[in-house]
Structures are given as structure tokens and as C-alpha cells.
């Protein structure tokens, strides 16, 4: 069917509108990136910043010179990679049995787990527990206490439940046990949803800072978000902000911008590779969830 004039106008308007929306989505990042490489005078200019008119890399140098930024980066990568992997393993171990109707007392176990979604002991007993387990000031405190995100686990369980029973029944006739079925049938079929859950977990890990604030006092174990907060939100990191190094004080806006970009870039780099997984996976995951 040939598009009518009205249809063409509609499409044009739509494209303009969506383009504007995309600009609104992307502009803040461009603005910050531009400020991060601007001279102090340019950085404080009232107006739009699409590209820097006076280029000055002092702020980036100041940020990249900070050892702690790299320490934080390393710790954040560690918790994201290791934490996500272990979370997937634990979730599968939990979701699979709970999805099998023949597990005795299945509802009891499910209830026990569900209960924890609503009631927690609070901050002091959790702190005491973490300490008695020797997790204080250890990078494992980022991973172990949040090992099974209950909501994600339920999404996975629901997905496992939706896998047709015939597939595994034939495997059972061939003598396969539950472990074999999980590894060779269920998990391969669940790749998209696993990818989505991995993404949720990874994003959560990369963006977390509260646990670090409570349990970590050793700077060598801090995560990137903590340093980011000290620089960008609470303005307490006087060293990085250049308040002690005399002439840098005017660069504060650029230093903050450079720090933000430092945290943004890793995500931008991996983003294109993840995209195809999460779009597909989220559809399945959220519809089932």
C-alpha cells in the first residue's frame, strides 16, 4: 500500500518528536563530557555545551592521577563480574528445585524464601552478622550477603516452570538425573532470561555504594561509586577536587564532570555488546515475571 500524504506528515512529525526525545536523553551526557574537557572559564559559562570551546585536560589528568579512582574501578569490576557469576549459580540452584512440582514441601520452602522479601532484621543485627562472619573490610561483603536476589530468583523459577515438561520426561526415561537435566536441558533453554538476570545483577553491583559505606573502612577495598559520591554529591573529597593542590580549585566543575564520565564510560563501552541480550531477555523475563 502506498503511503498517503497524511501518513508521510505523521511519520515526519513522529520522527521529529522521537529525535527530540533522543536529544533529551543524550544531551546531558554530552554536556558533562564537554565540561570535563573545558577550561575553567568555559566550564562555568551559562549555556549549552555541545563541544568545548577551550579544550583543557587538566581535570581529566587530576582525576586519572588519583590512585583511589583506579582502586575503586578495580573493586567495582571485581564485584560486578564475580558477584554476577555467583549470583547466577545460586539462583539456578534455588530456582530449579522450586520449579519442580515433585519436590516435597515445595510450598514450604517457597514460603520460607518469600517471607524474607518482606521482613528483615535491620541494620544492627546484619552488621553484627557480617562482622561475626569475618566479612568486615573484605571485598566478599559486596557479594555474599546479596547472593540470591529473591525477586530475580522468582522470575527464573517462573521461567523454569514454563519449560514444557515433555522435554525432561524424555530425558528422565533415558536415565538422566535432575542435575543432568538442569545442566543439559533447562539452562541452555534459559539463556535469554539468564542474560537478563545477569544484566540486572551486574547493573546493581556496578551501581551499589551503601554496603561499602557501612562495612568497608579500608580505602583499598572501596568501590568506585563511593569515591564518585564523595566527589560529586557530598563534595568531601578535597584532594581529588583539587582544593589542596592550589591552583586546581577553579577546575572543580570540570573535575566533577570528568569523574562522572569516568564512571559512565565503562558502561558505554559494554553497552552495545549487551544490548541484543537484554532486549530479548527482558521481554521473556518481565512477561513471565
Amino acid at each position, binding site marked *: 500500500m502506498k503511503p498517503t500524504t497524511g501518513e508521510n506528515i505523521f*511519520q515526519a512529525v513522529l520522527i521529529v518528536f522521537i529525535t527530540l526525545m533522543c536529544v533529551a*536523553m543524550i544531551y546531558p551526557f554530552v554536556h558533562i563530557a564537554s565540561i570535563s574537557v573545558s577550561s575553567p572559564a568555559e566550564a562555568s559559562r551559562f549555556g549549552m555545551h555541545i563541544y568545548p570551546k577551550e579544550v583543557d585536560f587538566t581535570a581529566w589528568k587530576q582525576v586519572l592521577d588519583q590512585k583511589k579512582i583506579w582502586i575503586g574501578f578495580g573493586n567495582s569490576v571485581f564485584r560486578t563480574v564475580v558477584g554476577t557469576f555467583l549470583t547466577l549459580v*545460586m539462583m539456578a540452584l534455588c530456582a530449579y528445585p522450586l520449579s519442580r512440582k515433585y519436590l516435597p514441601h515445595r510450598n514450604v520452602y517457597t514460603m520460607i524464601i518469600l517471607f524474607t522479601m518482606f521482613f528483615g532484621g535491620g541494620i544492627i543485627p546484619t552488621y553484627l552478622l557480617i562482622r561475626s562472619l569475618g566479612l568486615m573490610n573484605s571485598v566478599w561483603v559486596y557479594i555474599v550477603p546479596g547472593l540470591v536476589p529473591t525477586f530475580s530468583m522468582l522470575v527464573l523459577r517462573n521461567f523454569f516452570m514454563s519449560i514444557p515438561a515433555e522435554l525432561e520426561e524424555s530425558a528422565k526415561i533415558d536415565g538422566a538425573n535432575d542435575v543432568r537435566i538442569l545442566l543439559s536441558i533447562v539452562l541452555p533453554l534459559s539463556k535469554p532470561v539468564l542474560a537478563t538476570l545477569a544484566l540486572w545483577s551486574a*547493573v546493581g553491583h556496578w*551501581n551499589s555504594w551503601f554496603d561499602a559505606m557501612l562495612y568497608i573502612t579500608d580505602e583499598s577495598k572501596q568501590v568506585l*561509586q563511593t569515591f564518585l559520591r564523595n566527589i560529586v554529591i557530598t563534595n568531601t573529597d578535597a584532594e581529588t577536587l583539587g582544593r589542596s593542590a592550589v591552583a586546581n580549585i577553579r577546575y572543580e566543575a570540570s573535575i566533577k564532570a570528568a569523574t562522572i564520565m569516568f564512571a559512565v564510560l565503562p558502561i558505554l563501552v559494554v553497552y552495545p555488546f549487551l544490548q541484543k541480550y537484554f532486549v530479548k531477555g527482558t521481554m521473556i523475563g518481565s512477561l513471565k*515475571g
Partner: protein
Amino acid sequence: MNNLNIAKIESVDKPVGRKSSKWAATWREYRKSKYLFFMLIPVIAWYAIFHYGPLYGILLAFKDFSPRLGIMGSPWVGLDHFKFLFFQSPDFMRIFRNTVLISCYHIIFGFPAPIILALLLNELRLGWFKRIAQTISYLPHFFSWVVLSGIVIVMLSPSEGPVNFLLQLVGIEPIYFLADTDYFRSTLVGTGIWKEVGFGTIIYLAALSGIDPALYEAAVIDGANRIKQIWYITLPSILPVITILFILSLGGILNAGFDQIFNLYNPAVYEVADIIDTYVYRVGILGAQFGLTTAVGLFKNVIGIALVLSTNYVVKKMGQEGVL
């Protein structure tokens, strides 16, 4: 429940001694699914340690906490914390009202946004443009509120920010969105939409792609225009998804977004921005009033569980699979 019924039937089938038969049946079932059970052991142990372990901390809501005496040893005060909270503290009504209001605004304005965007994206004919637009709009979802707050603070600055620059161009006086009680909640909702609207479209686009194209063809033959097609075909087709997500969002009404508010607020806007979670942080962790904040947390949990259970019930009533 099915498996339990089966278990009963089995035990009736085999007329051994009543007591031993029940245990024997259970034992047999466990032996049959021993691999499943072994898988479950580490997970259950983890839940026991990390979730049930600290649970005794709830007692703090009824105690006058003293670090030297510990949680179990601290003296009981009954419902004193709750009495203070509900009847004496000027804060409670405020934080409760703020929490519910901010959540409601998020739902009223933030909930329809991805639906509308999904409908618009769905109408696009240029496939490559649609894909690029989607990719860009998902992006802000992936950043923490720490990062985004840093960006938002710059964008909304009255003296340097581009938003106020644009407002000025059209003759509006600069507004300090983050420190003005009239604008702060709108700013929360606006930046919330900015972060999540794109990502929120994914589920609706999935639902839209599942609609049978034949329906549209038939509608076109019947002479239905685009608006009518959306109204009579598209919307009804994705209505179940919309309903479920809406009900779910109602269930989370006491979670007004700690990370976002905590990183954006300041004393100038406490009046409109202080929610239950930020209060618990300020008064509990910084003010060391652990008994009081445990009471607040407990209150929140009880309301939360009621909301989630009832919404889940409604979802199931509607013939959909519940979350729980």
C-alpha cells in the same frame, strides 16, 4: 499443593502403620528428589544465615537499645517507639505523606510515559531509526543515581545549567529546581521518567509485537483510521500487561526511591522530600536512634506486605500468573 495431595493419596494406598507410613512416604519422596534437595541446601542455608539470622533485630522496635547490653539484653519498652512515632513526633505524618505522594506522582506521570513512548515507537516506519531511538532511550537506565544526580545537579543549576538557560531564552526566570519546595517533587518525577521511560518500553514493545497483523488489516479494510486502530486494537491487546504492571507498581507504593532522593535532596526541601527511607537513614544511622527507626521499618514492612499480597491476589483473580 498438588504434590502434597499426591503424597496423601500414596500413603492411603499403602496400608502400613499410620504414623510410620506418613514419615516413610515423606522419606521416599525426598529420596526420589534427592538431587533437587541437595541443590536447595546451600541456598536454604544462605537464607537462614543472611535473612533469618538477623531477624531477631525486629525486637529493637520494642526495646530501648543500648550497645553494651546488645539487642537481646536491652530493656523492653513495649510500644513506646510506636506511640512516639504516631502521636508525638511531628515527622511521621510528614514522611508518610511524602512517601505516598511521591510514589503516587511517580505512578500517575511515570507509569503512562513508557506506554505512550512504546505506542509512538511502534508507529515508526523507519526500522533503523526505531532501533537507534530505542538504544538511546534505554541508556540512562544503566546509571546509578549517584552518577545521574551529579548530572542532574549540573543540568538544573540556576546559574550554569542548560535547562535554566533554555528557560531564560523564552523569558522565564531561572528556577532552582532542587531547592524549591514547589518544584522538587516534579523534578523527582521528571528525572525519574528520564531515567526509566526508555527501558520501560521494552515490555510494551514486546506485547505490541505479539499482536496479530491480520487484525490491523481487517481494521483498515473496515476504514478505521490510526487513532481508532490504537484505541480498538492496540490498547486492548496490551491491556493485560498494563494492568499487571500497574497493580505491581501500587504494591511498591512505600518505596518512593531512596537512592534518587538521598542523592538529590537538601535541607531546603526536607519538607516535601523526606521519605520513610531517608528518615530511617538520617535518624537511624547518623542519629543512632536505632529503636525508633526499626519501628518505622517494621511499620513500613507490614504495610508493604499487605499491599503486595493484596495486589498479587488481584493479579491472580484476573487470571494472570502472580509474581509470588
